[in-house]
């Protein structure tokens, strides 16, 4: 679904509504988008909202892994 949204839209915004993320979900979902787009495109096209404070370092971690996998 996200892949389709990215193909149809220039930008997407994902609102986590303050819900904590599990590492596996964060890695697959956020890391997956990062791996698909790479750093520059991710910064340009994706906005993540309302990530709870305890999940922020996790998001940074999976983003880094995703960008690394993308090679971009």
């Amino acid at each position: 679904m996200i892949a389709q949204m990215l193909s149809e839209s220039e930008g997407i915004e994902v609102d986590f509504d303050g819900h904590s993320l599990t590492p596996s979900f964060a890695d697959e979902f956020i890391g997956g988008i990062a791996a698909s787009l790479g750093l520059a495109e991710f910064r340009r096209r994706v906005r993540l909202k309302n990530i709870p404070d305890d999940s922020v370092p996790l998001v940074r971690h999976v983003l880094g892994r995703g960008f690394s996998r993308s090679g971009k």
Partner: protein
Amino acid sequence: MPEEIAGYASRMQLWQAIGLQPPADVNARDPRGKFVPLARLDDPDVVLDRAVDLAAISTAYGADRETTNSLEVSLQEIMNNCFAHAEIGAELQGLACAQSWPRGHLAQIAIADHGVGIRRSLSANPDLKARLDAGNACELATQLGVTSKPNMGHAGYGLALTRQLLAANGGTLLVQSGTEWFITNGITAREGSSLCLWPGTLIVLEWNCRKPLRVKDVYQSWPPVTGYSDDDFEFPL
């Protein structure tokens, strides 16, 4: 089952959880937040609800929201493993329960499945063969990044997160699968083989109720990804 255990098992609703009549009538005792009876894990969609129910054992003794949240995250990871890795064809994938000891300032959560076990599951990843041949599969499974399904949506976070979470608390993690077992409190670790076979995987989390559990601290301790700086992540989250 020894009589001294049967009463407790009845109170924890063991027989009902596996679809059987209990052997003896035991007056249902109000848990009062001190225990959570055995709950079935038979549908991936119940994982979040089960995690919330089990983690609520911490609110009963006054844990802060972050501690309860951290438990919920850890438990979701472990219970999802029952569905993702245990390879169980039956409807009942596993069972989970919780117990606290207020005077002892301890609480435990136990999650068990009757799947293929950790060693067989990890054997599906050929990159782990040498490490499996050399060591204890249960200990290996608690290391960050160890998974049976790399690059398939599984990154090996669940047990590693739980191990580090409990270690920071001064708590204890026990993992038994087949005849192998591993136990650690963050300071000391022991592993071995047991004569007692568990045909699947049993995980017990035990923590100190007087200290918090903080997933945020665990995440911050994970090795940074090389090639990127903090500036690369300074965009609105």
